[in-house]
């Protein structure tokens, strides 16, 4: 039954992908991209990757759609016809697809216990997580503790992306958008129904984000997902109440503090491990009890991830929205 459902979802995914490629209206293409992400999240979920599904749904279908729409507002709504090199593109695409399909022949069956991925370090993680880290969600344990270096790298990739977008899109961060009141800046003030319902939902979305943030040790969740969820709630607020009202709630200075503060918190936890005589990002030495130290370390590290992700995503949104008002 679950296989049938998976095949059905993959067929839908293929249809959506073809529709995105063929769509000339970019607005419709963005909407289809959002649908694509939701289907992808459903597929991740039936593959038992709840953490990834949550991220995909929040980032892919939620925040990315808003960002793409913000980018679309700066350009035209229609894709330009490209006539050149079509035959060449077909050949390259066909060759690449054949190569990928050929590569999948050698892949192990889904859930095969003899697969290399399940033979290498995975058994060790599964055996050691209850003893060394003591939290039920092994994904969080691997992400934040065993492979803390990788997550630190990921966090700094996001940090760099946020700083890059700030450099590219913001001309003068100090200029307040309230100086340029336009119809768009008012948000949905004059639409009563979306406004009332939206205002009702924002606190619950943010609350759910906080739950995902601090419950990540026990269930699916963690800093990345929580950051995306909280950011989605705040973007909803910005869409309802207008850009300037959202900047009153979370001003630019606070956004910058969130971006750098989260990354610095992660680094500080790593350095605290060094200072207490352990390795960099070794949480066991943070407290006298190694397992409690791991708990504290993971909580702080995930908090750092959540802060930076929220800050970066919101900054990118505001950068796009501020440009929209200028033009």
């Amino acid at each position, binding site marked *: 039954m679950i296989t049938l459902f998976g095949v059905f979802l993959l067929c839908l995914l293929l249809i959506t992908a073809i529709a995105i490629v063929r769509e000339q209206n970019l607005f419709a293409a963005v909407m289809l991209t959002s649908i694509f992400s939701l289907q992808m999240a459903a597929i991740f979920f039936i593959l038992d990757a709840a953490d990834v599904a949550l991220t995909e749904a929040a980032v892919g279908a939620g925040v990315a759609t808003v960002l793409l729409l913000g980018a679309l507002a700066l350009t035209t709504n229609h894709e330009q016809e490209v006539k050149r090199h079509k035959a060449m593109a077909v050949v390259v695409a066909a060759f690449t697809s054949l190569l990928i399909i050929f590569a999948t022949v050698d892949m192990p069956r889904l859930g095969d216990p003899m697969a290399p991925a399940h033979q290498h370090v995975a058994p060790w993680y599964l055996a050691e997580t209850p003893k060394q880290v003591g939290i039920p969600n092994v994904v969080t344990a691997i992400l934040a503790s065993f492979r803390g270096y990788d997550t630190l790298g990921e966090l700094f990739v996001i940090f760099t992306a946020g700083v890059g977008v700030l450099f590219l899109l913001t001309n003068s961060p100090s200029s307040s958008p309230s100086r340029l009141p336009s119809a768009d800046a008012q948000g949905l003030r004059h*639409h009563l*129904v*979306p406004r009332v*319902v*939206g205002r*009702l*939902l924002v606190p*619950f979305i943010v609350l759910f984000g906080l739950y995902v943030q601090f419950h990540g040790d026990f269930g699916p969740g963690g800093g990345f997902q929580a950051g995306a969820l909280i950011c989605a709630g705040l973007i909803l607020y910005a869409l309802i109440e207008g850009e300037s009202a959202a900047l009153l709630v979370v001003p630019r200075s606070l956004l910058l503090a969130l971006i750098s503060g989260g990354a610095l918190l992660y680094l500080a936890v790593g350095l605290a491990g060094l200072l207490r005589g352990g390795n960099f990002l070794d949480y066991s030495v943070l407290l006298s009890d190694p397992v409690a130290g791991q708990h504290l370390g993971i909580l702080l590290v995930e908090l750092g991830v959540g802060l930076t992700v929220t800050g970066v995503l919101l900054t990118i949104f505001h950068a796009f929205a501020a440009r929209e008002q200028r033009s």
Partner: protein
Amino acid sequence: MNLELLATPTSWVLLIAGSAFVLIGGIGALRMPDFYTRMHAASLTDTLGTILILAGVIVQAGVSLAGVKLLAIMVFMLLTSPTAAYALANAARLDGLAPTLSKPDPGDS
């Protein structure tokens, strides 16, 4: 009377009724003549279809944490889906999309 004996048929009836509404909504979205009537058909899927299907699943889940979560999802869907439908129709109206009206009956006026 055993309650669990009743639960399964009840949930099946609810699930099948909900699925029927989703199917009708899908057919309506394809077959209706203009944007507003299509949206009307599609919003059937959001409200009645969702309520019935989720109610069916809640009956299956019983009084448990999963049931409460499903109830929360149902309330969330009931709040957001009609709002989204309203916003969509309102945007179309503001954009100047006129509904396709039937030709007035000659004997009517």
